């Protein structure tokens, strides 16, 4: 006779998790973010811009600190900060003939330094800066869900609209330019959606760790797929497994959610890397 007790216990526990409001919010936000981060990571990997996620994410910290100083929504100021810094990295890197990595090396510490200065100037301690840095699923409000849905939806919709142009520029920007693609616009468009993706991920994954999910889903998918449509599908699947699995594990093991999600995503990457290598 099959022992169904463990299955029933498992289902009961899952129901327990979803009966908690903060876990409902966290799962909802995690699912939405998975789609957004997976699609953005597809382009981050193909454009070989992995380090830019780190730079833009840290620039969001300056924005959060500015919000704390001014006593306004840290999400709003983080959006402004991240979008401006992200585009400045692209602009200065190109116009200064520095390359993106050098521009990131300039703006990443600058934005962090400004964040530290803003905190130093602020006498308000009611903003959970640590939560923004490492993620805090308890802090996800209904308002955060709405912001994630609206901005995430905007990122996904605009990416679908410009998909073939983004693909062409990622593949061969010189030929794309000669054949009439608006390359400069697409560069800044991409940097903007990257910045928005970072900001909506701050509370669940955290500024320090979000860059991992801007790279790992796409990188892991690239190890086992050779067509862009399957690469995007696998990338989304990996992001969904990482966020939902990470949230469940973090709940049971009482671990920080962002760090658990990123660790699980990394393990999935190593698994796909191994599969990719054995296929060769």
């Amino acid at each position, binding site marked *: 006779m099959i022992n169904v007790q463990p299955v029933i216990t498992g289902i009961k526990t899952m129901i327990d998790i979803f009966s908690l409001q903060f876990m409902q919010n966290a799962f909802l936000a995690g699912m939405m973010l998975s789609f957004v981060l997976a699609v953005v990571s597809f382009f981050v990997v193909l454009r070989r811009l992995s380090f830019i996620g780190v730079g833009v994410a840290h620039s969001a910290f300056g924005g959060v600190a500015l919000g704390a100083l001014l006593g306004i929504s840290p999400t709003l100021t983080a959006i402004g900060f991240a979008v401006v810094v992200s585009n400045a990295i692209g602009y200065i890197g190109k116009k200064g003939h520095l390359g993106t990595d050098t521009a990131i090396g300039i703006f990443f510490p600058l934005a962090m330094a400004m964040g530290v200065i803003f905190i130093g100037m602020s006498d308000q301690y009611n903003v959970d800066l640590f939560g923004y840095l490492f993620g805090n699923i308890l802090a996800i409000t209904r308002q955060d869900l709405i912001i994630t849905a609206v901005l995430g939806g905007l990122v996904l919709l605009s990416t679908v609209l410009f998909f*073939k142009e983004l693909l062409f520029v990622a593949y061969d920007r010189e030929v794309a330019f000669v054949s009439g693609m608006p390359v400069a616009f697409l560069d800044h468009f991409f940097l903007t959606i990257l910045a928005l993706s970072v900001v909506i991920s701050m509370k669940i994954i955290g500024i320090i760790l979000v860059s991992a999910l801007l790279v790992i889903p796409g990188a892991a998918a690239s190890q086992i797929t050779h067509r862009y449509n399957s690469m995007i599908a696998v990338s989304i699947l990996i992001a969904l497994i990482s966020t939902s699995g990470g949230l469940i594990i973090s709940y049971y093991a009482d671990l920080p959610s962002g760090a658990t999600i990123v660790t699980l995503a990394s393990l999935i990457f190593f698994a796909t890397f191994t599969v990719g290598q054995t296929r060769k």
Partner: protein
Amino acid sequence: MKHTAIDTKNDKEPIVELNDVWVAYDGKWILKSIYFNCYPGEIFGIVGPNGGGKTTLLNVILGLVSPQKGSVQLFGSQPDKQSRLEVGYLPQISHADQSFPVTVLDVVLMGLYSRIGLFHRPDRNSKKIAMDLLSQINMADHATRPFAVLSGGQQQRVNIARAMASKPKLLVLDEPSTGVDSVAQEDFYELLAKFRNEQGISAIMVSHDIGVITSHADQVACLNVELHYHDEPDFCFSPDITKKVFGKDLKVIVHDDKCATCYHRHQDHD
């Protein structure tokens, strides 16, 4: 194998016209006093050593680099987005990420993107055009294969199909022989000649490979900062000019009908 241009220079306006073009980077002249015309139906080869300004010259023609002095005309106007739509561009084979997750059909479809327009996806008609082009280059059977698994020669054929997809009047080719073996090179240039003969398309190609260019171009010029322009390809390689362009120790091995190793291949083609 040499080809005769469909149209003669005398009854056509040049599609590319450079008059006394000078380009400098960091205070050093890369191109000096370049006079250059390319006519409809003409295959124009430019040879020269690495660093001689070949790619810069192509960038000037495409309007990607503005000269400090002189005038550039592409299809009768300054090179801009509109005139570039008449150009199919083939960069060096190593230019794009060779492991990019696209199929052969995807690559050819990219050549149609500017015509399809923003916010639209390639439709059935676009796919038909792309498949027709793949048939013309004998690559239709490879349409759904990943581009990354093709040989260098096959990739270059697909790249020319991509460049042809937008029905250009001029092909601009940067080192088309790089990474392609000699048999595939022959196939590639035959394809180029076919497009020229059937559609009257012009081509400007630059290479450091003297033999290939002289065998397949109607006009050849040698570039090493200055352009040595001649009507007869063979004349380009007078000892005086080759010494000026490539240096004194150059040995020229021309791959042509007299090439012993290719004798049988040419016999077969004849």
